[in-house]
C-alpha cells in the first residue's frame, strides 16, 4: 500500500470527524486512510442506541448510530479512504503504521501524519480484585450492551450493576426494558460518576435503587453467577465488616470506569499523562511525537461525544496543516514558548497539558477539566503563574461532568509571558 498523507487509527466518532476535517482543510480523500478494527465504521456509537448525542453539535438529541451515521455518510460521499476489519499492530516514531486486515494482509504504510483515535476500554473485574468464583455472567457494561444491541441476546435475567458510570446507568434501563430485573446499582463512591439526568431517566424512572458507598466484595456460583456479596464501604472505600449482604442474581455488570486504550501510543514512545491515561498534547492535539495527534477517548475519557467531535476537528485540522508544511505550534517548526497547564484545589486534570504562547490561541480555545468530587457554588479560577485572570461561578460541579473554561483576551496576553496555566476551584 502506498504512503498516505494522514492515517487515522480508529473509525469511531473521533476518527471520522478528524478525517472529515482534514479533508475540509484540503487533504485529498484518497490521501486519508481510516483504519477501523471493527467490521463497520462508527465505533462504540453503533451499540449506543440510546438518545443523548448531538445536542451541542446539531442542536438535537440523536442516538449513537444516528450520530455516527451523519459522519459515516460524509466519509462515504466524499470517498475518504477507510478500511474495516483492520487492526493496527504498531506505530513507529517515524510515523510508519503496521496493520493487518483480511483483504490487505500485513501492511506497513508511511504516513505524513497520524491521528490516534482508538478510544478507550472498560476496567475489568480483575482490576477490582473482587474475590470469589469465576463463573459466566460477569460482564462489563459495554460487553453486555453489545450482546443486547448488536447481537440481540439478553445476557441475564437478574442483574446487579457495580458502578454508576453512564454506561452502567444506560444498561440498567436497557436491560429493564428488555425484561431483565435490575436489582440494584452499587457505587463505591459517595456520589455517582454518571450524568444526573441518567440517574433520573435510567434508574428513578424504573425504581432501580442506587446504593452509594457500596461495593461487591465476593462473587458466588461455580458455572453461572448465583449471587454476589455487597457491602457498605467506609470513607477509606474499604468494605465495612458486618454490612455484607448476599444478593441472589445471575448477572453482575461492571461499569467501573474507562481507560484510554494507549498500548500503541506507549510502544511508540509517546509521552502519556498519568492521570488521564492518554497522551500529553498541546492545543492542536499534537502529542510528544511531531506529526502524531490524538483526539477523543484515547486522549481522555469524555462524557459527551459532541466534545469528542470538536476535539477531533482540531486534531484533523492540525494534522492537515502539519502535512502541508504549515507551521503548527509545537509542530515540525517549534518556535513557541511551551506552557504547562495544571489543575489544583479540586481540579483533577486539565486538557490540553501544553499551550504555545505564540500559537493559535484564541478565545475559542478552551481548557477542559474534571473535578475530583462534588462541589456546589464554586468559582472556576483560571490563573497564569499564580495570578488570577478570570473566574466563573458554577452552581454544581461533579466528577461525572467534563467542564471547560475558555481563554479570554486577558488570559492569552498573560500566557505570552507565563509558564504555567492553572485551573482551580475557589469558594464563591
Amino acid at each position, binding site marked *: 500500500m502506498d504512503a498516505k498523507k494522514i492515517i487515522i487509527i480508529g473509525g469511531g466518532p473521533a476518527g471520522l470527524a478528524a478525517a472529515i476535517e482534514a479533508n475540509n482543510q484540503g487533504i485529498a480523500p484518497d490521501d486519508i486512510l481510516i483504519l477501523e478494527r471493527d467490521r463497520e465504521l462508527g465505533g462504540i456509537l*453503533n451499540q449506543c442506541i440510546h438518545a443523548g448525542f448531538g445536542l451541542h453539535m446539531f442542536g438535537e438529541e440523536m442516538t*449513537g*448510530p444516528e450520530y455516527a451515521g451523519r459522519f459515516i*455518510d460524509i466519509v462515504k460521499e466524499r470517498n475518504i479512504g477507510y478500511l474495516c476489519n483492520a487492526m493496527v499492530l504498531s506505530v513507529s516514531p517515524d510515523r510508519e503504521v503496521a496493520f493487518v486486515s483480511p483483504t490487505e494482509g500485513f501492511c506497513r504504510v508511511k504516513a505524513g501524519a497520524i491521528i490516534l483515535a482508538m478510544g478507550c476500554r472498560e476496567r475489568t473485574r480483575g482490576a477490582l480484585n473482587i474475590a470469589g468464583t469465576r463463573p459466566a455472567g460477569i460482564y462489563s457494561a459495554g460487553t453486555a450492551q453489545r450482546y443486547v444491541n448488536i447481537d*440481540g441476546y439478553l445476557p441475564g435475567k437478574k442483574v446487579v450493576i457495580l458502578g454508576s458510570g453512564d454506561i452502567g446507568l444506560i444498561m440498567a434501563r436497557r436491560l429493564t426494558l*428488555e425484561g431483565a430485573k435490575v436489582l440494584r446499582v452499587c457505587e463505591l463512591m459517595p456520589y455517582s460518576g454518571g*450524568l444526573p439526568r441518567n440517574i433520573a431517566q435510567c434508574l428513578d424512572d424504573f425504581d432501580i435503587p442506587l446504593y452509594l458507598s457500596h461495593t461487591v466484595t465476593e462473587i458466588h456460583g461455580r458455572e453461572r453467577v448465583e449471587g454476589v456479596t455487597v457491602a457498605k464501604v467506609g470513607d477509606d472505600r474499604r468494605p465495612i465488616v458486618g454490612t455484607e449482604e448476599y444478593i441472589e442474581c445471575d448477572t453482575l455488570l461492571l461499569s467501573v470506569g474507562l481507560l484510554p486504550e494507549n498500548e500503541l501510543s506507549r510502544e511508540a514512545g509517546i509521552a502519556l499523562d498519568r492521570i488521564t491515561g492518554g497522551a500529553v498534547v498541546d492545543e492542536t492535539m499534537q502529542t510528544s511525537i511531531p506529526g502524531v495527534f490524538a483526539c477523543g477517548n484515547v486522549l481522555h475519557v469524555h462524557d459527551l461525544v459532541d466534545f469528542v467531535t470538536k476535539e477531533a476537528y482540531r486534531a484533523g485540522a492540525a494534522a492537515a496543516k502539519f502535512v502541508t508544511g504549515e507551521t503548527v505550534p509545537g509542530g515540525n517548526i517549534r518556535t513557541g514558548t511551551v506552557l504547562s497547564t495544571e489543575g489544583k484545589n479540586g481540579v483533577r486534570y486539565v486538557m490540553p497539558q501544553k499551550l504555545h504562547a505564540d500559537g493559535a490561541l484564541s478565545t475559542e480555545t478552551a481548557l477542559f477539566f474534571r473535578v475530583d468530587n462534588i462541589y456546589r457554588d464554586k468559582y472556576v479560577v483560571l490563573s497564569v503563574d499564580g495570578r488570577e485572570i478570570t473566574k466563573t461561578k458554577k452552581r454544581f460541579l461533579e466528577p461525572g461532568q467534563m467542564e471547560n473554561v475558555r481563554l479570554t483576551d486577558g488570559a492569552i496576553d498573560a500566557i505570552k509571558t507565563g509558564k504555567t496555566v492553572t485551573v482551580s476551584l475557589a469558594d464563591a
Partner: protein
Amino acid sequence: MSKLVKKTCIVCPMGCHLEAEVSESGEILSVSGNTCKRGDAYIRDELTDPRRTLTSTVRLMGAKDDVCLPVKTSGGIPKAKLFEAMEYLKTVTVTAPVTRGDVICENFLGEGVDLVAGKTVS
C-alpha cells in the same frame, strides 16, 4: 400549603436540579433551578404528562452482518406505555436495505409519533 417538587432535568446533559412549587390543587406556581426555558417546560410536563423517547432495536432480516436495527420514537410516548411499546417491538421485523430516518411504524401506538430507523443498512 404548597409543596416543593424536585426533579433532575433530562432535557440535556447539564442535568439541572429543578424545583417546582406546586399548590395543593396541583397547580404549578413557580419553577426554579432551570437554566433554560426547556427546563421549565420539562418539569411542567413531567408533573402532568410524563413522556419519554423510546430507543430500542427491532429484528432485521437480509443484511450481511446486522441482525438488529436500532429504532427510536420520533417524540415522547407516555412513560406508562414504555413496556407496552417494548412488547409491540417484538412483533416488528424490518428487511434491509433500510435508511436512517425511514419510518418503520407511523403513529406508533396511536401516540402521534413515528417509529424511525436509526441506522442505514444496505
